[in-house]
């Protein structure tokens, strides 16, 4: 089997990157959240139609095909429920042709509360909320019973949902919350990889210009090694994310294990990238004026989303140790 990314997958990512570079610069991440920067443009190129079946106006792609493109949304720290709308929503709304059409056109941003997730990310930017309760999916009109919760990322806002709001919920019989959770977890891992790449690039550039002791700080081994460690962590995490996407697409028996490996590795790599970026930037890294903080906050927020590193590592360990094929 060929595990290299295809030309098409890379071209999809390139077009997403181009759009985000032009329409979602750091100023937009900082100030433009509420108008969902680049959302309509990415809808135009078809990002939100990727996983929607062709008979409902989508492209019928696999999650694996969108992994590099989702990385780009993380690299740009794009605001809005992107992973939820691209990856989770098509599995949850599978029995709702009208909603699928809206999804494909990008006019129906969706956010979700699945599995053990407590809060709904970017619920205020969604038109439709889907929550899982007792293993089933329910749709809620956006805007009811939401309370903004304090969170680390001022752009990726978290909302709690009043239990009474579920009274107005409509069941989604065709929805598959388990598949949706797997997919959105992988999509979030892909965004973490993208954010980590951005942090690494930015920090390498900074280390090349910031001078101390008469030389760029990037010329000192202690700084170089830290950055090299981040590069290694990111390069190790990225293939695990791709592998997880392939496993989820093919519904392999190891899918849950692969998803956990991907989320844990991507979260660790991104948190290492964030820690190193802050360390190398020094005090300026903490400031409000520097854009770095937007990516630091996003990494911390995404690393905790859909299961943090520790629970995913635990699930991975459990899965490997209980596999009789490995431990006879």
């Amino acid at each position, binding site marked *: 089997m060929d595990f290299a990314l295809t*030309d098409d997958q890379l071209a999809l990512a390139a*077009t997403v990157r*181009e*759009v985000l570079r032009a329409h979602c610069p750091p100023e937009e991440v900082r100030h433009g959240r509420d108008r969902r920067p680049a959302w309509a*443009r990415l809808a*135009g190129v078809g990002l939100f*139609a*990727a996983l929607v079946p062709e008979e409902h106006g989508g*492209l019928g*792609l696999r999650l694996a095909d969108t992994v590099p493109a989702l990385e780009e949304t993380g690299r740009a720290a794009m605001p809005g429920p992107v992973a939820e709308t691209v990856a989770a929503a098509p599995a949850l709304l599978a029995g709702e042709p009208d909603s699928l059409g809206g999804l494909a056109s990008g006019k129906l941003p969706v956010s979700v509360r699945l599995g053990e997730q407590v809060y709904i990310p970017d619920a205020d930017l969604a038109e439709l909320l889907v929550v899982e309760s007792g293993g089933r999916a329910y749709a809620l009109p956006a805007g009811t019973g939401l309370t903004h919760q304090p969170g680390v990322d001022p752009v990726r806002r978290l909302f709690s949902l009043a239990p009474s709001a579920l009274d107005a919920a409509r069941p989604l019989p065709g929805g598959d919350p388990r598949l949706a959770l797997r997919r959105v977890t992988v999509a979030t891992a892909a965004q973490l990889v993208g954010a980590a790449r951005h942090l690494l690039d930015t920090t390498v550039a900074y280390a090349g210009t910031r001078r101390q002791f008469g030389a760029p700080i990037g010329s000192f081994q202690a700084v170089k090694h830290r950055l090299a460690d981040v590069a290694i962590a990111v390069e190790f995490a990225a293939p695990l994310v791709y592998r997880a996407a392939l496993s989820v697409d093919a519904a392999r028996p190891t899918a849950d294990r692969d998803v956990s490996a991907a989320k844990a590795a991507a979260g660790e790599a991104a948190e290492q990238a964030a820690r190193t970026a802050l360390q190398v930037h020094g005090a300026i890294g903490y400031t409000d004026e520097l854009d770095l903080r937007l990516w630091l906050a996003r990494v911390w927020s995404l690393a905790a989303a859909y299961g943090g590193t520790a629970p995913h590592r635990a699930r991975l360990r459990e899965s490997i140790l209980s596999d009789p094929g490995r431990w006879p």
Partner: protein
Amino acid sequence: MNIVVCVKQVPDTATERKLRSDDNTLDRDAADGVVNELDEYAVEEALRLKEAHGGEVTVLTMGPDKAADTIRKALAMGADKAVHLVDDALHGSDALSTSYAMAQTLKKIGFDLVILGSESTDARTGVLAAMLAERLGVAQLTLANKVEVEGSAVTIQRVTDYGYDKVQGSLPAVISVVEKINEPRYPSFKGIMAAKKKPVQKLGAAEAELAADQIGLGAAWSEVTEAAAAPPRAAGTVVKDEGDGGVKTADFLSSKKFI
């Protein structure tokens, strides 16, 4: 309407561009190749004309094998098919040779309208449109920021220093466009996936019936004999303010005749 858009792969302007040490031509392997930015406006204009008037958009490029990436992008934007003129014998062609090779190919594949970007970001000669029109014996309508086609008449607004000229010609014609003309579309996911199914015809020098003595480095009318990097900027003079900083600054400006 049969529209041919000429596109060129150029080294990414964001990267360092180098000349080859052996023959002082552009080192195309040293930098990432991207679509010449102005050509994206040409592709967009061709697609808009096709959407308004019907017909077909063909992409024509001349360049090494890796220029296929440029073709793929134009096809992903929505062009219908492509012709790739590729031959080692074309390496080092100057503007005259390039216009000869492209004109020969255009005669072969046929066209009603040829659209180009007004210049490339690497060579920046900006002469290819005029040369092509001359070689093909058709109207040249260059530096357009607006194009209108009605029947067999084509009208453009040519950007000038004082405003614009209205220039009219009849088809077939060659047009070059400036970046004010439109906003190029992004390749859509659908377009990207459809692109690989679109036909790309590869033509060598022999198939395009190019005379060997008219193309390549040997046929170039000028030769780069030597190249050197621009000298680094010299450090400026630092004036230390000891209460007379204003006077020293004024003296300096006065010595340069600014004041």
